[in-house]
């Protein structure tokens, strides 16, 4: 019998989406384990027993010095080399919200020219000046190499962050676009570009960017929370559509990952 895909979901130090992220992975057919950051660092858990590593949402180290900053420093110093080999071996890395902020700070993204060290993008304070919880529409670049979004064109998900505005230098942005590394953008409900308009673009992110991947498409980071849409009743309008319940569309991201790793 074929072994299920194994997913390592990081926990500890103020991270907080571990249970629902593991649940989403399980619903997608994977076997998920919640592992404390210190068990990864100490080697008590062997990263190479897994095929996917998820950096999850939360407030690592309280996010007091920039979201995801200290987690990135910690992981890079103590497990950076292992994570690089993990990626090299063809495994997957997903960063959601605080996890996205972390892997951007680690330099795993954008990962131009196999450089997984350089911080070339940043996620900074929302233009609105507040933490914000709201649902957004995402338009997905179906031509992106991202393996997590294959076959997807549009998705609704919740955002819940205070620092989600993606900022990068002009040449970095151009390269991201040119290489189709911009996986998803904030959009209006009809799928057209948000063009920076609030609240469709909830944080003022450059070019409406909500998520990016590395050139291989196996490292993916996004601000919205796919693990928070794994049941039809998560959708804010489900009670208006009881006859035709919305599918739990966030799950597709995890299913795609499982399909890719089971190939």
């Amino acid at each position, binding site marked *: 019998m074929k072994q299920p895909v194994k997913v390592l979901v990081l926990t500890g130090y103020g991270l907080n989406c571990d249970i629902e992220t593991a649940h989403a992975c399980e619903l997608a057919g994977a076997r998920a384990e919640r592992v404390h950051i210190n068990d990864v660092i100490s080697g008590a858990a062997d990263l190479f027993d897994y095929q996917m590593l998820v950096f999850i949402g939360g407030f690592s180290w*309280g996010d007091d010095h920039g979201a995801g900053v200290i987690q990135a420093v910690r992981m890079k110093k103590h497990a950076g080399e292992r994570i690089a080999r993990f990626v090299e071996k063809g495994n997957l890395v997903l960063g959601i919200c605080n996890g996205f902020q972390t892997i951007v700070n680690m330099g795993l993204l954008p990962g131009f020219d196999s450089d997984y060290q350089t911080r070339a993008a940043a996620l900074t304070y929302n233009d609105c000046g507040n933490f914000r919880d709201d649902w957004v529409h995402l338009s997905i670049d179906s031509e992106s190499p991202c393996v997590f979004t294959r076959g997807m064109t549009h998705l609704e998900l919740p955002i819940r962050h205070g620092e989600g505005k993606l900022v990068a230098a002009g040449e970095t942005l151009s390269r991201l676009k040119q290489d189709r590394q911009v996986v998803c953008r904030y959009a209006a409900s009809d799928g057209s570009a948000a063009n920076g308009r609030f609240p469709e673009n909830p944080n003022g992110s450059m070019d409406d960017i909500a998520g990016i991947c590395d050139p291989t498409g196996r490292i993916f980071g996004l601000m919205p929370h796919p693990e928070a849409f794994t049941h039809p009743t998560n959708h804010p309008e489900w009670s208006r559509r009881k006859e035709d319940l919305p599918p739990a569309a966030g799950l597709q991201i995890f299913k795609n990952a499982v399909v890719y790793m089971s190939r």
Partner: protein
Amino acid sequence: MPHRLEIALKPDLLDAEGRQVQKKAAAYFNMDIASVRCVHILTIDKDLTDSQQRVIRDDIFTNPVTQVSGYAPLDIDFDWCIWVGYRPGVKDNPGETAVEAIEDVIGERFVPGESVYTSRRYCILSDSMGIEDARMIADQLLSNDIIQQVRVFSAAEWDRQTGIGIIIPRVKLDHVPTVTTIPIDDDETVQKISDARNLALNENDIPVIRAYFSDPDVVAERAKAGLSDPTDVEIEYISQARSDHCNHNTFRGRFLYRDRSTGKVEEIDNLFKTFIEAPTLALQQKKDWVVSVLWDNAGVGRFDENHYYVITGETHNSPSNMEAYGGAITGIVGVYRDPLGTGKGSKLVMGSYGYCVGEKNYAGELKPRLHPRRLLDGVIEGVRDGGNKSGIPTPYGQVIFHPGYMGKCLVFVTALGIMPSLVNGEPAEQKTTSPGDLIVMCGGRVGKDGIHGVTASSESFSEHTPAGHVQIGDPYTQKKMHDFLLEARDEGLIQYVTDNGGGGLSSSVGETARFSGGCHVRLEKVPLKYEGLDQWEIWVSESQERMTVAVHPDNEQRFMALSRKHAVESTVIGTYTDSGKLHITYEEKPCAFVNMDFLTRGFPQWVFEAEWTDPDDRGLFEPVVSEPSDYGALLCDMISRPNICSREWIARQYDHEVQGGSVIKPLVGRNRDVNSDASVIRPVLTSERGLVFAQAAIPFYSSIDAWHMTACTIDEAVRRLLAVGGDFDHIGGVDNFCWPNIQYDPAGNPDGKFKAAQLVRSCRAMAELCSQWEIPLLSGKDSMYVDGHLPGPYGEYRKVSALETLQFSVTGVLEDIKKCVTMDVKAPGDLVYILGETKNERGASEYYDRFGYTGRNVPQVDAQAFFTRYKAVTRAVKEALAASIHGIYRGGLGVHLALCAIGGDLGIFLDLSRVPAAEKWSNDALLFSESAGRFIVTVRPENKDAFEAIFSGLPCACAGRVTEEKILDISGVNRAPLCSVRIDDLRYAWKKPFGDLL
């Protein structure tokens, strides 16, 4: 040598934090500011090499894409620079995480005395601002002198080399810990010491204390233990345990109640036992889902075969009133420790909030410490950070504005948790301590925080004395502890767990040691934030984020290993015994030796005189107002009133869907912008069951009669729960009483007897209604001194007392979340039913308040009639016959019809002549009466017969329909058109007051 690192956003990036300051300065003080740039400062009090400095700056604290930084002051242009930093001893959460990060990166530990202090400076560009304006922004927007220090620099004063200088707010006590003996020669001596030490001992308790310590047997035992007269540790312990906060002396008091209107006199011995405990215990016999009530940190109900839910509610009023952000974050993080400390521990799954403050735009002559708008800003942010950073959704809450809360604000925080019904094969809700178990303190360290609550004087500040009495909660430390304790629980390592809240170790160890029958605590083991605390301070400090755990010695090693893995500090501070004694030592020297049962015997009950005068005898009457003619304008005005209008800006700042189980969110409808009646979560992700939660507070009715305030509040909470699909057969209640002082004093509290009578009536109304509706009170708390003395323009102080306030929360279990209903109307053509009778009950209503009246006819609850009606509502939901359900609450039918239409982004036609009512008084009575027990329900035409069959014989009528055209179209009692208002206009009016805060 200390190093000061300054970090700012690159100049071409928008500074969102600065822009908020700019916006508030404009809105609050009408100041014209061109720009504000924030500089984050880390003052690292540690010797560092050049390369260490570089690594710290580049690898941790500077984002190369967005930030600039330097150890010299950053060159940012300003007209005024305002620096804000903490006072010594105030919890600096970012400073602590900076230490963790630096230690990790440079591979070197900070030694005691070394630290990192964070602060900020704001660079303000403005042509028009003078020094007075800069001071005003510093003091009234950016800082609070209780916890922070401020410096203001003009451009001319600024030294580009030294900048703000090096400011190190380190605590230096230079004090040798000392146990002091308290002489007990006579009552007067003890009273004097109580006053001098701020112990607040009740004068009737003093003879009991003296008698105990003079008892020859006690004297002999104590002599053997090396003690004579009581020590300050012992007296502080007794004072904490006997405080109203810990012992609930008011609720356990004896009330002599006299009804002046009827002459009837009666005595109520113990409000808690009579009106809370007795009815709840009776209901526990009837309701098998009630698992554990009235003894633990929170109440426990059954969620499903394998899980229990846990609920409790708290207030954190006085601290929030002094320092809004710190008080509120400490409040929410604190209440989250209650479910964590219930049974063997439960996981937190939801929180809610309730804020009562003065009028947001108050422009009168009284000067509260914090203006209501500033207080509200701080409280909102405190709960936001406390909830969001804990990873717990905050999907529900309310805000109430009333001048009575200017004296003291109210901050309600409620917490729900979930636990497996069995832990390691044992019932999860049960726990005990046994002789030999280790007393372990987990989490934060102990400082002078919260000693004697907020009564400590602010005059004692000096440069290096800790500002101990106001705290700042630390959700990060607590989240780590939460994850650790749940893992330890699941491994069966926890015998008992409870939180350290009011009274600190004194309460938590004192109470848990009652199970084993004694304890021996070694105070020198308790980890401290800084040296120099006296023994009694260690014992009663309320430093946050701490739990006390009983661990079997065999499990010590494993427990400590898990604690290290989670980066949580845990320390064995003593042992539970069966000696019958609370025994405390410090480096082997005795500090306390008191009989465990001393606190449970012999203390006199508090006594209150309560005098009731009914509203007629108090001269209340209905105002004389003719029917208005412009209902369109009136409706728009009503819906934009501060106590009704949209609070979207708060709901959106709170993460309300973390944990992935969100079912009914705080904002619902087509545009997701109207408040839902209640919230529903799915706390067990593999289950289709839900947990429904709602709360209500309608303090306004107390100005007529707290009895009806109470009944209507409970009724509203229940209707909210029913409206989303809650089951009337399974409702657990939580009561949070916030009352002004009820102890009569002819000069200081001349209406104390009336307020006491209001409390008796409120408790009795709650007991009667909860018994009839079979709502056990799973948990509750009281906060009894909601009064303030505010300075006026002539140097006088005026007492301002809050309305007698009850916040009532309800929860229940839903078998199938897909049966949930939301309040927004769904489709054109759906029929609009009004359920429940509208009576002429506008007393203390929003409508009368619009005209400055109180009135007389307060809404009343008919428990029996509503019982039948609510059962029918539950049935209609179970049979999926309702397309939308919404309760009619504050503001009345007109306001709530409008909200249903806004939610659905459709129109409604309503014929007032068909609304169930005993009499058709007038259109304004029907539209703005706040009669209890009513709902607006929409029904698809094909469900008409089935729906009406359920409600046959009940006051229920089809009075209108949902329309495609987005208009609220109402015809009057005479069937003539009354008003026709565009839904867009209503929405605009509803959102306008606070819309720009989003």
